[in-house]
């Protein structure tokens, strides 16, 4: 446990030192405040639209940003150490491979969680204080749900980045694959799903289709933050499938948790069997 924390602590202090933590927090806070204030601009006015609309917009932007940040933060976790020669050295220390990877995960995970809580937390507080007629309770619940799911989504992509990082032997390849993962889940997946829907002309099993959304953590994340308001009208595109998902909230949360637990377990397994 001690060595896990030693590794995590180095990652945390690294992200403080290179100002990653500060930069991500700042981006999140600016984004949230910008959307809160100019979210109603589409309808021709400036000002706070509504909590559901704000969260929905944040979630839509979040699915682009969070995976990207998580992948960038974590893609060189192992391959970076290997290129510097420190991986070999670390493994000669009283430290198992699992401990090393879990320490990295704790460090990167805490960095992302802290940035999310600080960035969006500050924005939430600012909205609560500055907007006159906002319902504090529902805002707080929505914000907490949003922050929680954002952290889980980020952890998922950190774990996916590790899957790459323990497999490849060069940093540029890891970076390329990380971008490919981002591209697939954020852009390609929904297109594929939509294409399947259209091409199958309704022949596809109607019960199976909504479950396909669970194969993409960013879709789960959006569902979680939009469906929560019981407003299915907000669901556009493939997300409308989500209204038919028979698993409810707990299932969506579980989905996000599985999406970081399974890739992390996979990365641990791959790392343990890897030849040094």
């Amino acid at each position, binding site marked *: 446990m*001690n*060595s896990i924390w030693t590794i995590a602590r180095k990652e945390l202090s690294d992200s403080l030192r290179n100002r990653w933590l500060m930069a991500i927090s700042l981006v999140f806070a600016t984004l949230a405040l910008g959307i809160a204030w100019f979210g109603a601009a589409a309808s021709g006015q400036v000002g706070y639209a509504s909590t559901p609309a704000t969260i929905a917009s944040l979630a839509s932007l979040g699915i682009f940003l969070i995976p990207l940040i998580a992948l960038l933060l974590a893609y060189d976790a192992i391959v970076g150490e290997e*290129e*510097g020669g*420190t991986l070999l*050295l670390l493994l*000669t*220390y009283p430290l198992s491979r699992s401990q090393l990877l879990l320490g990295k995960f704790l460090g990167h995970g805490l960095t992302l969680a802290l940035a999310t809580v600080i960035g969006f937390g500050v924005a939430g507080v600012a909205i609560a204080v500055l907007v006159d007629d906002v319902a504090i309770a529902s805002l707080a619940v929505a914000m907490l749900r949003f922050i929680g799911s954002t952290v889980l989504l980020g952890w998922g992509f950190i774990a996916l980045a590790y899957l790459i990082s323990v497999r490849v032997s060069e940093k540029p390849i890891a970076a390329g694959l990380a971008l490919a993962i981002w591209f697939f889940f954020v852009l390609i997946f929904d297109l594929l799903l939509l294409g399947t829907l259209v091409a199958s002309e309704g022949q596809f099993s109607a019960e199976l289709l909504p479950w396909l959304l669970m194969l993409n953590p960013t879709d789960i994340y959006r569902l979680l933050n939009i469906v929560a308001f019981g407003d299915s009208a907000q669901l556009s595109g493939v997300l409308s499938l989500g209204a038919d998902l028979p698993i409810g909230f707990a299932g969506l949360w579980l989905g996000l948790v599985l999406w970081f637990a399974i890739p992390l377990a996979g990365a641990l397994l791959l790392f343990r069997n890897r030849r*040094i």
Partner: protein
Amino acid sequence: MSCFHLDNVSYRYDKSPVLTGIDLTLEPGEILGLFGHNGAGKTTCIKLILGLMTPNQGSVSVLGGHAGDPQVTQHIGYLPENVMFYPQLTGREILNHFARLKGASLQQVPQLLEQVGLGDAMDARTKTYSKGMRQRLGLAQALLGKPKLLMLDEPTVGLDPVATADLYRLLRELCEGGTGIVLCSHVLPGVEPYIDRAAILTDGALKAAGDLAALRRQANMPVTLSLDPANSISALEHVIDRASSSSGLIIKSDSGRLRVDVQPRDKMALLHAVMASGEVADISIHQPSLEDIYVHFIGSGGLAHRGGSQ
């Protein structure tokens, strides 16, 4: 309890043998030189002892335990070849990090950095370090927590002659304190005075192991005598010819001296004869050096047929 003991160890990488039937032991307080051409299996040997890999055959015991166990690795210091430490951290921060991982006290960190000559640079980021300074930092890292077994891969790369001498003095001190040390190096004349035993690997097999005297005996290489004649060179040549009628010696004369290559077993007889004749003014004896022995065992094919990576 020996520092490590390899018993008939073999290791294959994708079915091609890297090490075959290695028997090697290191006792506490001993300095072992591990030599071999590129791809001979030195690094694999070290990785097996460090527990980074397990052998396909044979057994590896380290410090009375199993290679790779945390209780064992805690007492091993290792300096790999070419480490780039975290460039954004200072020397002190890096050493603190590694000390925490090793469970060693943080108080020794500034002391160790002083000891390797990084006292003034310990609070500078390591991206500003020269190669020699990174090497010193790596050494300080290897010395964390007073290791009982120290494995150094090319420790003198990038070190100036004074620093190299300091390093060997330090190793000698550690050795006297009971640490077993493995030195891998290609600078054979540099390590020759400091090692107690040498092990020579070629193509994954242990060609020879033992102290220098034993290796010389095993190699049975001629000893070279340089003789200054007292009177005339031809008289001296005549004496040698007579003394060695049985075993063909090679005589070369250069600039008024004679160089004679003599088999070790004939050396004393020849010396007696030469001394008795009174024809010699000065003698110097050149034993085969570690480098000569190394070349003898490796074969002088050199680059031509030695390939592969380590």
